């Protein structure tokens, strides 16, 4: 028993969902959202996430998304009230014949909400995700993250965007390193400089190759995100390695495009299923953490407001 604990094992990440099953979910969601004039949206979102998480598996055991439509609806109402308040304040300024001030206030307000939304989104999504009954969790400190977020934004503005790659990596690092899976912790080893060079190379080669290199650029980015991520528990660890190729990305994008065009967009479900499968089957997970020994440590967090604000602002979930 002692021996097997420190043995290196390979774990299999997989996506089992079929396009047709996902299609059913999307169509029913669509129908209900239209019939209810949009009120059903939070429930639809929950159903979709439950499906996507539920069809993702590690070593044959599926992940579970515990979030419910009710939680998301509450979050949505709060998020909308927040935006209405912002809009009312803006119109108040307009009423006082200071429209510019109102507009500035509105945009500053939205930017100020961003870190709160990211923080809330992470806390909610992580806490509502589990595997073998063990919850994920996000332990980032809100105020610390807000401070960091604004210093990154400030530096990016001052340097006319050059700091952008550092901002991306620093943010990832902060967010991911605060993610727990039970009593195991994630670590992210990315560096802004490397990421900057990677993007610089990708940008110029894409121009020289008339865009063809874009798929290899995407491969590099994906690799940089995945390979630098690892899970730690005590002195043991599990590493992630990407096996995607530029050609693989090219084929994926090409076929996805065809599916979307020839099905007039209805093939979206198959595109998602194919993409998930592609990504999951291209990540090798191996290490000596015994995945049977993870202990429950993370608390429940059911407030979806941050997640819903992110949704309204059209921010992709940073993961």
């Amino acid at each position, binding site marked *: 028993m002692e021996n097997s604990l420190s043995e290196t094992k390979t774990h299999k990440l997989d996506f089992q969902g079929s396009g047709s099953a996902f299609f059913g979910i999307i169509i029913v969601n*669509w*129908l209900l959202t*239209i019939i209810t004039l949009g009120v059903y949206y939070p429930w639809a979102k929950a159903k979709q996430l439950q499906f996507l998480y539920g069809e993702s598996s590690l070593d044959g055991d599926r992940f579970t998304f515990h979030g419910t439509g009710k939680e998301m609806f509450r979050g949505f109402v709060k998020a909308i009230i927040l935006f209405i308040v912002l809009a009312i304040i803006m119109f108040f300024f307009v009423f006082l014949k200071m429209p510019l001030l109102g507009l500035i206030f509105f945009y500053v307000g939205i930017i100020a909400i961003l870190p709160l939304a990211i923080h809330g989104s992470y806390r909610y999504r992580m806490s509502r995700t589990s595997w073998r*009954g063990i919850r994920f969790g996000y332990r980032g400190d809100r105020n610390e993250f807000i401070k960091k977020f604004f210093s990154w934004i400030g530096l990016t503005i001052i340097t006319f965007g050059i700091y952008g790659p550092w901002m991306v990596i620093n943010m990832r690092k902060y967010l991911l390193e605060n993610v727990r899976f039970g009593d195991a912790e994630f670590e992210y080893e990315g560096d802004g400089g490397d990421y900057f060079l990677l993007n610089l190379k990708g940008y110029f080669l894409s121009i020289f190759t008339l865009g063809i290199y874009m798929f290899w650029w995407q491969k590099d980015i994906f690799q940089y995100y995945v390979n630098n991520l690892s899970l730690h528990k005590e002195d043991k660890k599990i590493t992630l390695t990407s096996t995607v190729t530029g050609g693989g990305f090219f084929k994926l994008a090409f076929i996805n495009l065809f599916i979307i065009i020839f099905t007039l967009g209805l093939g979206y479900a198959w595109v998602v299923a194919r993409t998930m499968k592609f990504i999951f089957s291209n990540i090798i997970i191996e290490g000596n953490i015994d995945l049977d020994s993870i202990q429950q440590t993370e608390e429940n967090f059911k407030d979806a407001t941050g997640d819903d604000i992110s949704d*309204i602002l059209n921010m992709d979930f940073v993961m």
Partner: protein
Amino acid sequence: MTHKTNGLFYDGQSSASQKIELFFDTDKKVLFFENRNGERQNWILIDTIVNINGQILNFQHGDNPVQSINIEEKDFVSYLILFRKNSGHINWYQKLIGMGFKAHVVLATLILGIVGLSYIYAIPWVAEKSVVLIPKEYDDDLGSMFFKQNMIFNNIDIHKTNALNQFAKELKLNNTKKLKFTVVNSSVVNAFALPDGNIVVFSGILDSMNSYDELVGLLGHEVAHVNNRHSMKMLCRNLSGYIFVSAILGDVNGIMAVVGDNVNTLQSLSFSREFERQSDLEGFEILSTNKINPYGMLNLFKRLQEEEQDISMPEFLSSHPVTIERIKFIKKLIQTRPFYFTDNPKLKTLFKEIKQ
């Protein structure tokens, strides 16, 4: 009756699985088993979340921690699925999902069809009718905003503008709001009406006219656009289509962009065919109430259409496309409607002044 099966239990404390013997009491509708420590657990079936993922049946129980059991035994899985169905545990949502792929395809086609039809027919109609709800002052604000923004850079001909305003004063234009005419020096063959009653005529189109009845025809047409709030109706139409699509696609932030876009393109806002037809009809009526030769309108349109063959397409045509259909329509009006016209020396003199 009690059914027995084997399963894997996750206690929500650790990720380690526990092999258990699970019993299902069909009378009490309760699942029970003994965990590793020999404690008996009872889960009431309706308090348990049931997921079927492929071949595996998954029960989830409790909130904090969530405990779960996975079962792979086929007989038990199919028995439980049937049992839940017969006991009415399947809710309407699961029924909808369980309808199968073919039904979903039919549903999707149906929704797409309805969405498409309402986008093409219902939505623009509703939007157009709802224009009555928008206060008329808003037309004025929108029009004058555009006018202020665009006229600073244009070369306004004060003399011709005065003459054109006098010309219009001589006419009965059935207008509901005050009209203001402006002549801009430009080779562009165009004229447009803003929702606030500002009508801008480029000298290019005046140069192409031969007689005052053509000018009356043009003014009559433009005034009809103003009288019928066509700009506002088109704006509502364009916007409603966009709002509808973004509501379906769940995209909100584009709507404001469309409002902004449309204000900037008021000038080239392409009216729909029926709006052009309505304006032609009312323009014709204006000609006839003012006792002006309706051939003026026909001649103007014909000439504009001929010019279309030239290299420079008159802009008037792109925003008010003169189709063969429209020319036919006016011809028909001339043939079927009684009209009477006399020479109007005053208009003739003013027209000469404008043409100079």
